[in-house]
């Protein structure tokens, strides 16, 4: 199983470039893609990004898993654009969407979460005089990322419990137990953070 937006260990140039440069590069690439006005320009961008994936030695399966979740959006936007603005526009819109997501995926796949957080913390440092604690913000971001798989588990468990009891689907029958469980996990995690010295 591959999860979107997770570090894929490696030692390529892309893995070793400091996270700050990668984020800057990503910003630049996204602006460039959005500024493109001809399909051939997007074609070049697509080649460059594909080259990036090859350079980082990301397996095809992992790369594919990053874009696969976009399939319905692409289909919807594509059909919409073909009907209302014509095929060239459809290619441009869907193409830039795919390429921007691929660029973001390439950065996350080659950058550890903590490196990314370090950059955020450095960027937030000037806000310290307004009472922002960059360390705290970094911790909250890390915890958020960590909690995504936990929440997925909770929703899966609740949904299985519902099926096992044979009750029909309803948002209410899911949301109640899921929220209760999520709060219980949050409580336990709070204890664990204290035990691990976060309040120091």
């Amino acid at each position, binding site marked *: *199983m591959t*999860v979107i937006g*997770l*570090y894929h*260990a490696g030692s390529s140039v892309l893995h070793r470039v400091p996270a700050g440069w990668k984020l800057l590069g990503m910003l630049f690439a996204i602006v460039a893609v959005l500024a493109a006005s001809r399909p051939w320009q997007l074609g070049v961008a697509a080649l460059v990004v594909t080259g990036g994936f090859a350079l980082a030695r990301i397996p095809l399966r992992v790369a594919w898993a990053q874009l696969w979740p976009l399939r319905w959006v692409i289909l919807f936007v594509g059909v919409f654009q073909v009907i209302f603005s014509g095929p060239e526009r459809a290619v441009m819109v869907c193409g830039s969407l795919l390429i921007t997501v691929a660029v973001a995926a390439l950065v996350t796949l080659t950058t*550890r*979460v*903590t490196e990314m957080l370090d950059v955020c913390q450095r960027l937030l440092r000037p806000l310290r005089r307004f009472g922002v604690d960059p360390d705290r913000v970094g911790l909250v971001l*890390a*915890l958020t*990322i*960590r909690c995504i*798989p*936990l929440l997925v*588990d909770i929703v899966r468990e609740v949904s299985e419990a519902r099926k096992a009891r044979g009750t029909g689907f309803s948002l209410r029958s899911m949301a109640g137990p899921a929220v209760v469980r999520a709060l219980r*996990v949050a409580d*336990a*995690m709070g*204890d*664990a*953070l*204290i*035990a*691990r*010295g976060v*309040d*120091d």
Partner: protein
Amino acid sequence: MAEIRFTAVHHRFGDRVVLEDLDLTLSEHRIGIVGANGSGKSTMARMINGLVRPTSGSVTVDGLDTTAKGREVRRRVGFVFTDPDNQIVMPTVAEDVAFSLRRSGLTKPEIAQRTREVLRRFDLDEHADHPTHLLSGGQKQLLAIAAVLITGPDVIVADEPTTLLDLRNARMVNDLLAGMPEQVVLVTHHLHLLERFDRVVVLDSGRVVADGVPDSAVNAYTRLLA
């Protein structure tokens, strides 16, 4: 070994009395705590690092009051929870272990070095960059213990660390805890894993009903259940 001292400890949650007349000094190397569900084991364990403050009485570790000196106490007392998922706070294995050292004053390369050593000791080095949520239950508990040990605590308190594991992983985690040079306070339902312990305390409805070498304490406990 550290000296963990409960003095006249009473504890209530609302109207419910959870611990009563607790007077104990724990200074053995390996200490087990057993008792039925709801007998107060977790409450007692959590008092050792100040997560629960007694309603009355006091708990000290090497003379440090766990309520007044919580931070200092927690630096000496590492805690391992039942569900490692709640204790792992970082997205990948190495990052989670390194997280424990973020306030240690060590430099990044030093932290990376220490992290590598600890992961090797726990056979987790191949998984250093793996997402933590994809580890097996046994590996997650190993990671949780590694992340606690890396800070060099004097005491490890573990609250049913093997309850969610299959028997093989339970044995592995338990052997690890029992074989550590650090002092260990282990809450468990796996009685057969306590053979090598120095002392076993049996709780029933918030009271100590037996306390001694594993054989006699475990016997007292099984008689209690009969």
